[in-house]
């Protein structure tokens, strides 16, 4: 029982971290059909800058805020100078955002050196909870709470606000939204910055969780996030949330019971979903919520 609950908690918290990355990806794709491989670069920048700020200031909240800010600034640069020039051209997007990803990962080494760096937990999040003899690590619970709150906030943004309505409509029919006087490019910049901030936050939250950060983790998590976006249905936020949990939880259990297969697992999940429902779990053509 203890193993089961621990694996579940691990899986859900990892899943929610992946979700922070996938949320931006799926909305960016849904709204502008942009495949943004550089998204993982924002994640790794969030991880390093968060770890660094935390080390310098000893304030975890400052680290989180700082990493989000840095992620958004980098996101703005990416959107403005890399992605805008290649709207509507998937091949160029693929090349240029992959290039962006490499530049972001490699530039990490300029600032922080080539070696992985260790990250500590903030004191107030150290330790664990005990329920009936079951020990649950405090920080994982923290990640789950933050992840769920962010999911709720995103859902409210999309379903209850005017800008959310515009985003959902834009995912469905970009031209028609423009014909209603709405500046879709501005909308896209907003979504892109939101996604960049979430990705960086995901990185900042992951750093103390895994205890060590390295430049290549951006690619690792970006691939996971892409798998999640496709399984969930491109453009669907709920789909990504659901798929993140599935991938996170299944990954945690597989790593424990069948570690040899855990790498193949995501591909298997992906292939199964695509065979049964090619648009992904919740991907009816283009509903963003």
């Amino acid at each position: 029982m203890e193993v089961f609950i621990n694996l579940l908690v691990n899986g859900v918290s990892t899943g929610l971290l992946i979700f922070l990355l996938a949320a931006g990806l799926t909305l960016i794709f849904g709204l502008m059909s942009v495949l943004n491989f550089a998204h993982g670069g924002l994640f790794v920048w969030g991880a390093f800058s968060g770890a660094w700020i935390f080390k310098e200031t000893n304030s975890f909240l400052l680290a989180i805020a700082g990493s989000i800010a840095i992620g958004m600034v980098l996101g703005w640069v990416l959107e403005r100078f890399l992605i805008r020039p290649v709207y509507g051209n998937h091949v160029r997007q693929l090349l240029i955002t992959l290039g962006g990803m490499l530049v972001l990962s490699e530039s990490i080494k300029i600032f922080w050196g080539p070696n992985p760096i260790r990250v500590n937990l903030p004191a107030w999040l150290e330790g664990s909870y005990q329920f009936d003899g079951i020990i649950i690590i405090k920080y994982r619970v923290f990640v789950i709470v933050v992840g769920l709150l962010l999911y709720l906030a995103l859902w409210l943004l999309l379903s209850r606000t005017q800008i959310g309505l515009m985003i959902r409509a834009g995912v469905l029919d970009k031209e028609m939204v423009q014909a209603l006087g709405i500046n879709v490019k501005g909308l896209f910049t907003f979504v892109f910055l939101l996604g960049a901030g979430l990705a960086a936050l995901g990185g900042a939250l992951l750093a103390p969780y895994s205890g060590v950060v390295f430049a290549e983790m951006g690619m690792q998590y970006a691939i996971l996030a892409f798998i999640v976006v496709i399984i969930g249905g491109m453009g669907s936020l709920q789909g990504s949330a659901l798929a993140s949990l599935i991938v996170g939880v299944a990954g945690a259990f597989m790593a424990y019971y069948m570690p040899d297969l855990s790498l193949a697992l995501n591909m298997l999940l992906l292939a199964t979903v695509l065979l049964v429902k090619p648009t992904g779990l919740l991907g009816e053509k283009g509903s963003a919520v």
Partner: protein
Amino acid sequence: MSLLKLDNLETYLGQYHILQGVSMSVEVGSITVLFGRNGAGKTTTLRSIMGFNPSTTGSVHYHNQKISGMPTHLISRKGIGYVPENQGIFSALTIEETLNLARAKSTGDAEEKMEWMLELFPDLKKFWRKKSGLLSGGQKQMLAIARAYINGDGLLLIDEPSKGLSPIMVEKLMESILKMKEKTTILLVEQNFLMASEIGNYFYIMDDGKIVHDGWMQDLKDDRETCQKYLGIA
């Protein structure tokens, strides 16, 4: 007075020279009908006006102000409402959400326009919370027209509203469009000659990317030769 004026528009789609010098004028308070067979360039003309497929030469003026070259959302904010050929329904949004969206950047008195549309198309009120994708073809067309009217101010571009609808539905729709003429100028693309000739004041006929004929609707009905040649009516 001419509300919308197209001057020698030439538009390319990819490498194809689709509009080859289109000039026309839409008078305030009229229903102007643009006829022409499939592939003549009617949809492209509307899309050029809206800025989706900007023309390479020529100009579009609205209220004597040049709008060609502006991005679509700014053209829309000048007060032009657009009903695309495929209706452009946001299938996952409800009627309520769709019309609220139309109101977000609308020109003119959105409340008043909303009220009148719900009066003109009571079905929209009845299915207020229903997802647009689940509406019937006729209801979708009403929604598309209401959305454009609420969003715009002064001019509606409507692309083949009768397409795919039953004759009874088409008749109802044309009646509604005729009523809307009291409050807005309309540029209507149609292939349904019988219906459009009942409600239109002025017409243009397009063929192969050019305007080949124009005049008063009344005169077109008597012009057997033109009807036969371009509209396939005996």
